């Protein structure tokens, strides 16, 4: 039963659970940590629940785990106080902690491929739409994220407003976040298209059968 494939998936899950437990220890702002952990938790449960019906490739699961790892670290340090971001701020004299922007970029860069896979295998999308739709989905979800953020901010901490949002006092923060995700998705899709062009499978004319049979 426990093939080599399953080991990778269980390993990813174990890594994420261990990381979650670790980052749950005395987060910088417990309330922020709780709010930012709701969606990832639901997402992971969703992935586990749909695994039998619609298994993604190992590459996708790995990319998703990478993204969730970055988010877990950000949630622990309320993003604006993430040490890595502070270090980057000091080295490049940016004037602001850019860790949240990095994670927005990763949202596009790391999750565009799983989305492409979902469209290719789940929806049977073909041709150039296969590259267009993941980019637009990243863009749309980023917009939705900024909308939800604004709701949470005005519902939970109306007086904190723009500070709570992690905008660090920038009125264009929402737009820059969405743009960062867009660039990430564009880069991912470009790399994907380049790799496929080299392999001669740029525009797969027909959706291939779901992930190579993993019951070896």
């Amino acid at each position, binding site marked *: 039963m426990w093939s080599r494939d399953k080991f990778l998936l269980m390993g990813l899950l174990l890594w994420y659970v261990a990381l979650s437990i670790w980052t749950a220890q005395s987060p910088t702002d417990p309330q922020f940590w709780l709010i930012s952990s709701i969606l990832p938790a639901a997402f992971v449960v969703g992935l586990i629940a749909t695994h039998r019906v619609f298994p993604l490739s190992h590459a996708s699961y790995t990319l998703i785990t990478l993204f969730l790892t970055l988010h877990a670290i950000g949630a622990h340090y309320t993003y604006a106080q993430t040490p890595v971001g502070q270090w980057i701020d000091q080295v490049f004299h940016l004037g602001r902690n850019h860790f949240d922007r990095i994670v927005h970029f990763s949202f596009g860069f790391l999750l565009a491929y799983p989305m492409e896979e979902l469209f290719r295998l789940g*929806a*049977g*999308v*073909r*041709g150039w*739409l296969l590259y267009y*739709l993941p980019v*637009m*989905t*990243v*863009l*749309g979800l*980023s*917009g*939705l994220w*900024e*909308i939800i*953020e*604004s709701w949470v901010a*005005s519902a939970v901490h109306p007086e904190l*407003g*723009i500070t709570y949002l992690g905008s660090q006092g920038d*009125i*264009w923060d*929402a*737009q*820059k976040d*969405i*743009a960062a995700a*867009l660039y990430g998705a564009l880069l991912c899709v470009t790399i994907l298209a380049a790799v496929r062009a080299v392999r001669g499978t740029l525009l797969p004319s027909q959706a291939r059968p779901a992930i190579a049979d993993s019951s070896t």
Partner: protein
Amino acid sequence: MKAGLPSLAQAESRNSHLASALLLCYGLLWIWLAIAPVNRRDWLLENLLAFALVVLLVLTYRRFQFSDVSYGLIACFMTLHAVGAHYTYAEVPFGFWLKDLFSLSRNPFDRIVHFAYGALLAYPVREALIRLAGVRGVWSYYLPASLILAQSSLFEIIESVVAAFVSPELGNAYLGTQGDEWDAQKDMTSAFGGAALAMIITLTTSRGLKKTA
């Protein structure tokens, strides 16, 4: 899920008259509103994308014709946008009237047009996806709403870039935030809400058609 398609195909042969009539009406209205806009430069900025869309629709007309319904919806949206551009959105008389009527704190016309963007253009987007890309089933309802939200987000980014770099002093008029820090988010919500509504209506009416057919 191909229920709605045969009627669309049949409509294609007839809609050349409707499409050209709509184009003519829009052209006349556009010229009328172009004569003396409230702010010429803002009007120009607002019209860049609108102009590109009309040119695109005209150029692709021979290759891909939308249904009558879609052309009607697109024309409605373009009309609303042309009116908004003429009055730089924040100063549309109809918006002021609504503001007084419901005692709002701001002119809501731009929000209405954002909503209309979703409500009126989700259906044409769905049609293009179905006929050009062979999108089927639930995806044909989900993707248009997702695309509208994405384009809305992209639009807010473009708006912010224009406001911040191209013309900081004109920025505020073009941006139309009217001093609201959550303006971008509310605009996107309106568009998404409009698109969701349009897809729900499409879903229920196409189900209804299938029953009667």
